[in-house]
């Protein structure tokens, strides 16, 4: 099984949108490598012909009648927003400056 290098850990942190300090990354990378080595034990099980289980009980899609019902007001939905303006969530710019 492949191990997790520091560079790979840095890549994973970027993919997961986690801004980590260099010492934090050093620390986590070593631990992740150890955990990845442990969980790789699942490969010892011969399971080629075994179907995967994503859910312990059989689940089917659940529908409800297509009827309007009460939902959160805009005010309630915005109440916990870090910033709101004109009845909307206010967010930082979503495009890079160079674009």
């Amino acid at each position, binding site marked *: *099984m*492949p191990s*997790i290098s520091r560079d*790979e*850990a840095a890549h*994973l*942190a*970027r*993919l*997961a*949108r*986690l*801004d*980590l*300090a260099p010492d*934090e990354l050093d*620390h*986590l990378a070593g*631990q*992740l490598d*150890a*955990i*990845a080595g*442990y*969980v*790789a*034990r*699942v*490969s*010892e*099980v011969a*399971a080629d012909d*075994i*179907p*995967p*289980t*994503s*859910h*312990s*009980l059989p*689940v089917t*899609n*659940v529908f*409800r009648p297509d009827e309007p019902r009460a939902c*959160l007001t805009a005010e*309630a*939905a915005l*109440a*916990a*927003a*870090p*910033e709101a303006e004109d009845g909307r*969530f206010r*967010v*930082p*710019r*979503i*495009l*890079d400056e160079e674009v």
Partner: protein
Amino acid sequence: MADLTRMDAAALAAAVASGETSAVEVTRAHLDRISAVDTAVHAFLHVDADGAIGAAEAVDVRRRRGETLGPLAGVPLALKDVFTTTDMPTTCGSKILEGWRPPYDATVTRRLREAGIVILGKTNLDEFAMGSSTENSAFGPTHNPWDLDRIPGGSGGGSSASLASYQAPLAIGTDTGGSIRQPAAVTGTVGVKPTYGGTSRYGLVACASSLDQAGPCARTVLDAALLHEVIAGHDPMDSTSIDEPVPAVVAAARRGADGDLSGLRVGVVKELGGEGYQAGVEARFREAVELLGDLGAEVVEVSCPHFTYGLPAYYLILPSEVSSNLARFDAMRYGLRAGDDGTRSAEEVMSITRGAGFGAEAKRRIMLGTYALSSGYYDAYYGQAQKVRTLIARDFGRAFGAVDVLVSPTTPTTAFPIGERVDDPLAMYMADLCTIPSNLAGNAAASFPCGLADEDDLPVGLHVMAPVLADDRLYRVGAAVEQAFAQRWGGPLLSRAPELEVALS
């Protein structure tokens, strides 16, 4: 009358219903106890004294009007801080949700309120219910009332510690890999993980959606059963909720209390013992198995060969689900936003916020899940883990063809010292060795007190596993064991816990 905080929930509800005491008196007694001991225990992240007194007054008014009250009306409860509550913050033990006031109540919260149960406050937990010690809480660890230098289990350590220190007679936990059962074991209390889908997850902030399940925590088996019936049952707001009648858990607890287990077939899981298990835990477990035989059960050994792979499979499946579930904390709609200085992009703000808002364990699991789900590794990790999950469910299926319930220790050791495993994730994960298989297979399981380990005088739990929707069997076994041990010990296990020093401020 007797100290209200030492009474069980069934007795408190009866005393409220008869007018012997009032819900307000009961609630005040518990709020006073919280003031006296929670500085040392730190079970609660938030106490809502005014809200609790208000809820208790409403119960008393209903009683005076002659209304029929539910079986737990007027009884206080400690709610794990991972359920949404409109009148209290919901933090999930995370800085990223510090101070968040949800705009809706979880179904569990709503059902508690409708039953007249008095919610005292929100209890501490490992961040987003990830951990076995509550040390991963951003707001500091909870201390085990048996020994304040030790962990109360996790993730629901606040709930278990609140019960063991008489701050509440009832609590709610959630169990993704053992977070109800392991805290119950190490604090000498009762904790039940219902069948997956037995209780609603609506408003339960998700850790791993295919594994999470809310359940009752109490000091007695009957109290847990009464609470189970309040919170369980179909909920159209949760698409994985089972649309079937709730198993008759209260009737089973009452039946079990007669101490007769004849006709019950019990399987001892061969793989859950031996190396890595504390001697005192194994000794108490063997005694409990003997007791089951004395009570009339037929005891056999059962092999579940794939349980050994439960822990590694779990630490692929869980982080995978965590990494997608925690993606919602993006600093845009609610929760923390950090680093928004007007020049940074949304993506930069998102990364800075998540880096500042999540603790080490959340970061480890998010990154591990991101790794397990990445192309190239997906089949070898996540795909293979899902196949192991099938094999574990088949092991259960075969075992339950031969026996009615399976038993094991709840966790390999007694409560370990705070700090001992906090930076050794693999050692921490071992605490859930015995409890994880039931999360992967979705069946019901519970932990009941079965004595103190000789080497440290700390509580040991008996773990009982039952098939899907056979939750009632847990309560029959638990109640039988509880009454037999109480006779042997001359009282409940918790009566042997040291008295906490009471703050006089």
